[in-house]
């Protein structure tokens, strides 16, 4: 304590000493360090051993488990995702810092907790790899500023910030959000755009001269399925195009498998519990299976649903966001099942090709109600 040292060295020691003693005594009492004697040992409330865990560690591990999916993304859709990720993270951090400054919160602890990074990453993973820079930037900023900090920052947001950001983009810029690259298809002579091409496109808003949109973009498999079915094609015809692979959309199936692996990794790390993903995927697969059996011509099968769009990302990385999810295990089952069912309904009959974002937001809104009616039985209370 340098100031105390300094005071001690000054000549008017007596007064200073008394003052210091008074201050130290008051502080110690305030910290609960004193009972009736001067403390010989520091004290603290039990428990005295805390598991070495932190929000930063949890968020860091979530990021690690996303890596396989990002690798798949690069393999199938080119390096655009990397640019999007960097942009998403940078904007999210900037928005977080801005909001923390406005709210007079310590920057260090909150900026480094990793939660803003996750928000930026999740939005980036939902956007087309060559989407213009302002799309990801405005989405992340919106997510952090309005969906997170308007509600009080980390831990206080009722809605998943990434999904709020994405949904706002989806409603405002539907065209840009459906311009997906097809996977590099040898049969169609389509090449992956290079990193520099991606960078150029994302920042300039148009393609470099040697590329044309028609040559490199296509609708997502979910989108193409919808259009094709609307044109009166049967499911088999719709799925016979070059966009479709063994299980679901070509490329998409691999990304979803990588996400599934990441999700299982998260389960093994005990960062998420099984309830939400299992309930969500089941609620999506079971109706799909029933309808597919009844009318295979008009309805895609369960495997297609599970391996397309944001199914796995939603099940393991978005719906499981604990802050905006239901609390008890029973509540989580209901919450997850709700997301799965709503996603299926939107995909099958709704106005958007994929419904994960809206399903998550709708169920977020239902969480207080779910929590109210799913308080688990407490030890010693009647069953």
């Amino acid at each position, binding site marked *: 304590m340098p100031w105390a040292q300094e005071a001690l060295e000054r000549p008017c020691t007596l007064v200073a000493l008394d003052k210091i003693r008074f201050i130290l005594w008051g502080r110690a009492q305030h910290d609960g*360090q*004193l*009972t*009736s*004697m001067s*403390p*010989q*040992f*520091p*004290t*603290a*409330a*039990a*428990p*005295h*051993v*805390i*598991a*070495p*865990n*932190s*929000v930063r*560690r*949890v968020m860091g591990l979530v990021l690690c488990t996303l890596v396989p999916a990002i690798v798949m993304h690069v393999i199938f859709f080119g390096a655009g995702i990397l640019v999007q990720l960097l942009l998403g993270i940078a904007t999210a951090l900037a928005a977080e810092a801005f909001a923390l400054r406005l709210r007079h919160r310590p920057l260090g*602890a*909150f900026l480094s*907790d990793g*939660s803003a990074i996750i928000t930026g990453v999740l939005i980036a993973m939902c956007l087309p790899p060559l989407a213009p820079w302002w799309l990801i930037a405005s989405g992340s900023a919106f997510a952090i500023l309005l969906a997170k900090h308007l509600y009080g*920052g*980390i*831990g*206080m947001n009722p809605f998943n910030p990434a999904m709020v950001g994405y949904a706002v983009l989806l409603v405002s810029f539907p065209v840009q959000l459906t311009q997906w690259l097809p996977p590099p298809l040898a049969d169609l002579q389509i090449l992956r755009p290079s990193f520099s091409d991606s960078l150029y496109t994302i920042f300039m808003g148009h393609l470099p001269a040697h590329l044309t949109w028609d040559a490199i973009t296509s609708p997502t498999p979910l989108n193409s399925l919808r259009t094709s079915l609307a044109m009166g094609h049967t499911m088999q015809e719709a799925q016979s195009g070059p966009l479709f692979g063994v299980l679901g959309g070509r490329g998409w199936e691999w990304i979803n498998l990588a996400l599934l692996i990441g999700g299982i990794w998260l389960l093994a790390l005990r*960062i998420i*519990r099984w309830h939400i993903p299992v309930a969500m995927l089941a609620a999506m697969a079971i109706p799909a299976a029933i309808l597919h059996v009844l009318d295979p011509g008009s309805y895609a099968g369960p495997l297609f649903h599970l391996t397309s769009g944001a199914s796995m990302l939603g099940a393991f990385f978005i719906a499981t966001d*604990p*802050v905006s*999810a239901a*609390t*008890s295990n029973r509540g989580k089952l209901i919450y997850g099942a709700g997301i799965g069912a709503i996603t299926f309904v939107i995909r099958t009959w709704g106005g958007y090709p994929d419904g994960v974002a809206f399903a998550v937001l709708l169920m977020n809104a239902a969480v207080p109600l779910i*929590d109210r009616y799913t*308080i*688990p*039985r*407490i*030890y*010693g*209370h009647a069953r």
Partner: protein
Amino acid sequence: MTAPAMHGGLRLAGNKKRSTQSALRIAAAPSQVVLPLDQHAGTAATPLVQVGERVLRGQPIAQPQGEISAWLHASIAGHVSAIELRPTPHRQQPAPCIVIDSDGSEESAAHEPVDVDRLDAVALCEHIAAGGMVGLGGAVFPTAPKLLLGRQADEVHLILNGAECEPWISCDDMLMRERAADILRGASILCRALSAARCSLVIEDDKPEAILAMQAAQSAAHPNIHVPNIDVRVVPTIYPAGGENQLVTTVTGLEVPSGGLPSDIGAICHNVGTAAAVARWIDHGEPLIRRIVTVTGSGVAEASNIEVVLGTSIADVIAQCGGYSGRVARLLMGGSMMGRALASDALPVVKASNCLVVALPTDLQPRGTEMPCIRCGNCSEACPAMLLPQQLHWFARAQDLPALDLHGLLDCIECGCCDHVCPSQIPLTQQFRDAKPALTAHRSAQAAATLARTRFEARDARLARLESERQAKLAERRKSVG
């Protein structure tokens, strides 16, 4: 025998080896003892001696007050030098204590051993009370009132607690290893006092020596010891398996009702240390004047279990174990999960002092910066009371008493599991401990309001009835007049 799994709980590093390497030691008699009058749960005892009076070792020096209270005995022979407020390890505020200065003699008060078979069960309970017996597991609930409560159940199941689930503590382990016969003898006395139908002993599976010792003692039991048929249950080492409620559920498969006691479902738990102390009192006339204390932690030179005269200063005990080695980061009474951090070692050993942990910084994993709750659910997964600590945290901050009640704040056993696993490093247990008094007050205020309302409604109804009777009579009279 396997046991039903407890909800939640934690697998913690036990750190018990440090204190179980050496045999049980006996501490030297101190020159002075400080004996708090309130070192048991319930009402403090009132002194029977005056300053200056000479007392003998084992002489009663304070008597119980009210139903839940306990006798206190002089733990050394000497003169009462003071009866005054002194700092104690078990209370925040200084507590009234009797201070005895030794006169060097070993003179003991005469207590005749008792023939258990000659006493009826209730008289036996009263005699156990006279020995100053309290639970030695740390909760120090007076033994006799607990026995009498247990006798009210139809069929009693005595459960001996040798689980010792808290990290660092090994005094029960050592007792079971070295004095298994005493525990069995105590168990038989307690069974008789309770008229118990069954008796179980619960030991965690990290104490193989203790399990073997207890089993061996049971098969080699002395013919004049009425050993009840104790079934030894080995349970997995999961904190807090030794919590009273968890223990009862493990053994009986039943849950202790919220706000109730184990005796409500016919179970009574006693610590193995209590059983051994009861045997010593009944058979040898020695009241509760000493106990085994685990002295451990990296900051003490010779970690061990040591039998200490109650009232000995903690500094003295630690000195007898080789003294401090290193810069002490914390001195705990109890284990690392529920123990109290002591600000000083100039405090007496009390009946609740099961363990002293002299912790160096390496023994502790202190809290990091507190972050907001991210609702990760680790806490509710670990909570043995099946609560939702994240919700309790939220409602405690909002001081929403009805919601706290609904979410079972008063069912929290303050085990610390939720704290331990929280990535946001929130001091949840402390928060719950602090919130409980307000909720208890709220509950009793509500009960009073309900009572007042029913009274008021009853009065209203009575007045209305009287009025209508009066009207009816009036009408009757008018009719008869008319």
